[in-house]
């Protein structure tokens, strides 16, 4: 079927649209010429960037004043739909807020959700999305059945963000019928220096094989020398060695750097889906059967505590 009207749940960080937002707008405009960026924030400042990447209209709730977006934005979307405008497809980024808004909206509209997608296509009289499973080795193509709107969430970096050179999109204010009872009372941002994990050219990630939290300093030192972003497996995030914002994988960041160095990481499928798209992969692991070697271009079977300090010395001496 033809997708005539697509909404993208758009997000803003530090005043500009997030990379996921721009990726989804780029894909949406390849499918239709009516693309709405639906913002749970003030629209004014972002209208130019949203338009540049393909939004023809912006619907903005204005500042949410501490309300969580799940209830607030889904309610605002439902109100626009009730007023007579029905999108064929609503695209969400596969992240916390995207999932919450999508979940609330799905109940309000009594529509299914399909999450963890990496692609979408119009196919004959239907719309099909693609979801990788088993660490990305198997791709499942699922068709929406029933009537639109279809709700789908996409993993970061599924589509290239490309400027269309479009004009600033016109902003329409939409109302929030219900802000919900939960309130954000304080916001904490974990400071990081150096390149951002999902944008860095080189990523050096550490896992449980580092042995203990203090050994993560080796990953940080190696990262600094390579101008890389430090990353982590979920095992050491759960153990509290590093903050969640370092996590690579299914429930963390998706990274596609030029070089990914995995130190003491086994290569669980949930980790692999977050880094398998890297151009070059180097793995250091003492177990030669570790699955990570199955995707590594260079694999070193050895003790990270021995290899990494020598590597650091060699790089320092250059």
């Amino acid at each position, binding site marked *: 079927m033809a997708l005539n009207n697509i909404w993208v749940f758009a997000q803003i960080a530090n005043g500009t649209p997030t990379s996921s937002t721009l990726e989804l707008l780029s894909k949406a405009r390849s499918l239709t010429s009516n693309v709405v960026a639906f913002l749970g924030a003030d629209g004014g400042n972002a209208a130019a960037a949203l338009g540049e990447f393909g939004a023809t209209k912006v619907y903005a709730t204005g500042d949410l004043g501490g309300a969580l977006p799940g209830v607030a934005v889904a309610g605002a979307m439902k109100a626009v739909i009730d007023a007579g405008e029905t999108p064929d497809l609503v695209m969400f980024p596969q992240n916390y807020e995207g999932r919450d808004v999508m979940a609330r909206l799905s109940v309000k509209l009594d529509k299914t*959700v399909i999450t963890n997608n990496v692609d979408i296509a119009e196919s004959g009289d239907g719309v099909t999305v693609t979801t990788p499973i088993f660490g990305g080795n198997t791709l499942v193509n699922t068709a929406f059945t029933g009537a639109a709107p279809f709700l789908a969430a996409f993993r970061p970096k599924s589509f290239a963000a490309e400027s269309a050179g479009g004009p600033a999109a016109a902003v329409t204010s939409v109302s929030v019928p219900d802000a919900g009872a*939960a309130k954000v009372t304080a916001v904490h941002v974990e400071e990081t220096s150096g390149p951002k994990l999902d944008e860095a050219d080189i990523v050096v990630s550490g896992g449980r094989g580092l042995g203990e939290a203090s050994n993560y300093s080796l990953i940080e030192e190696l990262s600094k020398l390579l101008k890389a972003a430090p990353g982590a497996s979920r095992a050491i995030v759960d153990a509290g060695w590093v903050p969640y914002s370092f996590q690579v994988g299914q429930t963390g960041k998706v990274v596609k750097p030029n070089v990914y160095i995995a130190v003491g990481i086994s290569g669980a499928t949930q980790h692999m889906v977050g880094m398998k798209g890297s151009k070059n992969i180097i793995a250091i692991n003492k177990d030669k059967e570790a699955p990570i070697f199955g995707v590594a271009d260079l694999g070193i079977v050895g003790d990270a505590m021995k290899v990494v300090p020598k590597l650091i010395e060699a*790089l320092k001496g250059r």
Partner: protein
Amino acid sequence: MNVIVCVKQIPDPAVPGALDGSTNTLKRDGKLILDDSDAYGVEMALQLVDKAGGGEVSLVSMAPNSETSGLRTALAMGAAKGVLVSDPALQGSDALTTAKILAAAVQRLGGADLIIAATESSDGYTGTVPEQMAEVLGLPSVTFAKKVSVENGALKVDRQTESGYDEVTCPLPALISVTAGVVEPRYPSFKGIMAAKSKPVEEVKASDLGVTPVGWEGAGQKIASVTQAEARQAGEVIEDDGETFGKIVEFLENLKVI
């Protein structure tokens, strides 16, 4: 304070997953175990009830073949009772139907002050069921909770965000989804395991809960095809002899990144 925890019983993650050739759904026919992700919710519930000085922890679960082994693990940890929804008609249900079923099971238990779920299951990981349940039940929710307490009858939650965390307050009754690592799940004691055998688990069907349509019929989606992705080729794997750091330097030099 009464708490209901949603627990999923899943195939052992240590066994590689497979698709059922005829339906293209995940095979769930072997022995099922308590999803690790849900052990955190059970532990959190037990601690909150303990702190409140009264009340109990109940469980809701949806699983094929009247499976209760994962539920028994949670009962052995200290939960008091459970409702199991097991019905062949549910096969093929999507996340929305699952949320409606679990919400109805919560209501069958008479509701609670707090409902706890994991952020996503380990085998299916759609990751929307908790928030969908909250909407079905008309409750406020705080997802991705990494620290939870109850003060003056309201929830105080540290909620994980992409860049850090938010402090969130929310009145009860409410629903939360908790991240892994939020608390350290206890191991069931021998006494707990013995006691769990006689704790009540009511088994019901979708029709007992009044939820229709369910299964394939209720799912607004169908699997069109399954394909294999292009596999990444493994490269050179070498044993460290004390000098392999040089190989890495060479590799990086060839890529002109150093």
